[in-house]
């Protein structure tokens, strides 16, 4: 692109590198392939899971007993989940050992009245309960009262093995152990009168009320696990009357207590053999309640394995994060339905599966970090028609994603190496190419000097390369050789011309002399002589200019004082010219290395030029100044300014600033002095002499616009 006088644009190397960026498409393609592969693998995993689910379903085929009777008569009122507990509970009225289960506690009662939360769990044959009661005015049991309903207490309603309703009351005398009594129907007196020691518990009075933790043997309950809990609140210390009774079930009259939702231990036993490390098996009944679970989803099987030696996994490399992002893997901890704490699942695809068809679904985990593939298959009854439950097999895609992320890492690594290698090769290749082109450019420029004269002995490097640059080099070399021959021919012209012209010139001269003897009238003879003189002078100057460089290099340069030479020269010239010449020298001596006769010739040319263009009454001003290393000799004439466009050609051979008509003016013909000027040789010769002396000749219009300055600069000899 050309902007102004500068050509702006990319060099070869960046261009090639830019073109090379298309290589980046390779890792992208790899990523696309991997994504397709991932899809395929996940599909495969889903199918495999479905098959597994179907297998498990077959295993449980017809086992209606595992989904016992409780599924038949459904009480719409809240079922209370009975969470499987991993260990024994220490009865201390603190909720720590319930761990995260405490989030799942159920609340009963209302804000205005007494309120309590309930959490039930089972470990082995004991049912544990945690009840937290909000009660600003706790009234403790008074040992003096026989009746147990004169203080705050908790009532347990349950049905024993024989479906006979039983009542137990938990009471306390402040923080500490609780006492449990089997009660009469009115909840006033304990029937045996002694505490039921198999029910144990602890109470802890808190700021807002009290917390009760109790243990109840499982064999107190009927197989359907019916249990109701109520909290009785006595407000007034004096009256000691139960003011409010908050129940976990609607009405005692119906005899329907809450039912505890219990896992089927037998099913879990069956499943435990099928459990895998990275998948979860859920058995759900028709109400989508969890009957049994096995296995546990883990965040990242791989990560876990390497966790031991990568304890500081928090500060992971950025690259790993990037790879994880690309593959969709997350190493964040997995947070999903907890098999131990979830008592029912209600998802659309599960409902669909109840109609009798296996299904596959994909979903994010609850925390949104992981992708889960879920396969569900119905469990049928013996009649093969009705569905008695569902098998849900869930597995994360982490294994696949891990595989993919490893592949991505590998691809990234290979791509990186490949890109680096290709970039290097491109860089080396292009810099070599650039270097060769540059070298060719330098050689080409070197082949001729500023004036376009061919230099001898230009050797082109890289002449034997077989490629296009080699071709170009050869072409340029041939072209320059041809140009050189042509230039030599041109240079030889003046000399050849002189040789050729001298013979006829001699004929004319000698003939003219004979004529002079015979003819008395000399006017025409004189003019003929002058004409001849001029022709001879022109021929002379031409050949002199042409062979000037040769003559110059034949001269040895000697150390000479330019100030002295100039002073001497100007003194002599002042006597010969009518024109006023002013000289100003700044230093006593300026020693330069030079050839005196050629410097004299240079002065001749510059002075002639200055006088020629100087108005008759204005002086030519010559100034010699010097700096530390150079001296400057300037000739100022007060003639017309030189047009800007002409400066370029001023010092070219045959460049003349005169109008062609002026040349033929008789007065100038007679002078014979300015022959060089008319041919445009003077300044050319002056410049060549300057260059031979390691200097330069510059022309410029004077600052005051009233003249032209020619300045010679030459290095000083020290």
């Amino acid at each position, binding site marked *: 692109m050309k902007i102004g006088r500068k050509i702006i644009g990319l060099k070869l190397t960046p261009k090639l590198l830019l073109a090379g960026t298309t290589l980046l498409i390779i890792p992208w393609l790899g990523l696309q392939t991997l994504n397709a592969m991932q899809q395929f693998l996940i599909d495969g995993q889903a199918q495999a899971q479905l098959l597994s689910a179907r297998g498990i379903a077959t295993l449980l085929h017809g086992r209606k007993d595992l989904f016992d009777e409780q599924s038949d008569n459904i009480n719409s009122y809240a079922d209370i989940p009975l969470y499987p507990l991993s260990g024994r509970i220490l009865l201390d009225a603190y909720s720590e050992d319930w761990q995260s289960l405490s989030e799942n506690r159920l609340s009963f009662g209302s804000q205005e009245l007494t309120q309590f939360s309930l959490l039930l769990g089972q470990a082995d044959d004991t049912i544990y309960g945690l009840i937290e009661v909000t009660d600003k005015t706790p009234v403790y049991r008074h040992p003096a009262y026989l009746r147990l309903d004169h203080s705050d207490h908790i009532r347990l309603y349950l049905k024993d093995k024989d479906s006979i309703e039983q009542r137990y009351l938990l009471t306390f005398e402040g923080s500490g152990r609780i006492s449990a009594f089997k009660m009469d129907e009115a909840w006033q007196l304990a029937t045996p009168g002694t505490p039921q020691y198999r029910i144990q518990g602890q109470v802890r009075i808190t700021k807002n009320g009290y917390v009760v933790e109790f243990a109840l043997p499982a064999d107190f309950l009927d197989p359907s696990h019916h249990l109701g809990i109520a909290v009785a609140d006595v407000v007034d210390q004096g009256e000691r009357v139960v003011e409010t009774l908050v129940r976990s079930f609607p009405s005692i009259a119906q005899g329907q207590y809450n039912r505890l939702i219990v896992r089927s231990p037998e099913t879990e036993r069956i499943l435990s053999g099928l459990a895998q490390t990275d998948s979860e098996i859920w058995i759900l009944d028709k109400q989508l309640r969890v009957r049994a679970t096995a296995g546990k989803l883990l965040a990242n099987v791989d990560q876990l394995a390497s966790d031991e030696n990568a304890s500081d996994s928090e500060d992971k490399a950025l690259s790993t994060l990037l790879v994880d992002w690309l593959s969709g893997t997350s190493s964040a901890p997995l947070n999903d339905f907890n098999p131990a704490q979830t008592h029912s699942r209600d998802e659309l695809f599960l409902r669909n599966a109840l109609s009798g068809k296996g299904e596959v679904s994909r979903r994010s985990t609850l925390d949104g970090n992981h992708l889960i593939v879920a396969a569900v298959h119905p469990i049928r009854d013996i009649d093969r028609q009705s569905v008695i439950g569902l098998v849900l097999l869930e597995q994360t895609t982490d294994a696949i994603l891990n595989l993919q992320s490893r592949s991505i890492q590998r691809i990234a690594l290979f791509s990186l190496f490949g890109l680096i290698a290709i970039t290097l090769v491109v860089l080396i290749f292009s810099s070599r190419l650039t270097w060769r082109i540059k070298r060719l450019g330098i050689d080409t420029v070197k082949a001729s000097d500023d004036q376009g004269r061919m230099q001898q002995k230009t050797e082109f490097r890289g002449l034997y390369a077989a490629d296009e640059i080699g071709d170009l080099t050869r072409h340029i070399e041939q072209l320059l050789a041809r140009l050189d021959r042509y230039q030599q021919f041109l240079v030889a012209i003046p000399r050849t011309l002189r040789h050729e012209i001298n013979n006829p010139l*001699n004929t004319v001269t000698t003939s003219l002399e004979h004529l002079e003897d015979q003819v008395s009238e000399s006017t025409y003879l004189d003019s003929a002589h002058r004409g001849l003189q001029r022709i001879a002078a022109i021929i002379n100057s031409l050949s002199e200019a042409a062979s000037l460089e040769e003559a110059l290099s034949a001269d040895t340069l000697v150390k000479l004082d330019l100030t002295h030479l100039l002073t001497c020269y100007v003194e002599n010239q002042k006597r010969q010219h009518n024109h006023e010449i002013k000289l100003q020298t700044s230093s006593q001596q300026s020693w330069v290395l030079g050839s005196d006769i050629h410097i004299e010739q240079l002065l001749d040319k510059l002075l002639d030029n200055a006088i020629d263009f100087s108005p008759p009454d204005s002086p030519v001003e010559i100034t010699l100044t010097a700096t530390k290393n150079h001296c400057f000799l300037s000739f100022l004439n007060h003639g017309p300014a030189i047009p800007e466009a002409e400066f370029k050609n001023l010092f070219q051979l045959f460049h003349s600033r005169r109008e062609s008509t002026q040349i033929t003016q008789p007065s100038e013909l007679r002078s014979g002095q300015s022959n060089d000027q008319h041919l445009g040789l003077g300044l050319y010769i002056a410049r060549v002499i300057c260059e031979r002396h390691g200097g330069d000749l510059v022309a410029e219009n004077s600052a005051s616009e009233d003249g032209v300055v020619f300045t010679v600069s030459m290095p000083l000899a020290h």
Partner: protein
Amino acid sequence: MPYTIAIVEDDADQRHNYCTAMENKGFVVNAYADRLSAQQGMAAHTPDLVILDIMLGHEVDAGFQLCRDLLASHPHLPVLFLTERIDEIDQISGLRLGAWDYQPKPISLAYLAERVASLLRLKEVRFNPGQSDTKPSKQLGDLSIQEDAMLISWQEQALELTVTEFRLLARLVRTPGHALAYEALMQATIQQYVTNNTINTHMRNIRRKFTIIDQGFDCIRNEYGFGYRWVDSNK
């Protein structure tokens, strides 16, 4: 007895002009157009002086060849080259062959006659001493100059100068201590077309010849912008 001058020039017009001019001066002229006829003619009648062109017809160096042959048989024969080949290299090879003078074309017939006469006189002085009265040599410091014999010596060593160079130097030492303008020097060369540059070249050559004998030679001084000056070495 008039001198016989042989002129070898392939151009008929120029040959005719030379002949007329020389005959007008009272010389006997034998003119030849090519090398073979010149060789035969001069073998039959040995001339007193030969004017040679270098290029004869198609023979580029015929003049040089003739010169070589002639001087082999007649070592004292003055040979004057008159040629359009004015390159310094040709001049040097011509003079090295033993030619007495080398003149570029175009030439003035008057100057030619003067040169021919001066060469003949030189021949007389050099090879027939006593027959003509010779002026005694002039002494100027270390320089000894004998104008008629065109002999010059510096510190008693002889210098080999061309006719033109001798004339320039003789003119210069005629007025020792005084600057001599280019114009005066030009006239002294008795050549048709002379420029400052020609004078400078000659002066350079003369100086070089002096410095071969005497490293410290510094008697010829440039008078920049004017001409040259001979400065006596003793002063």
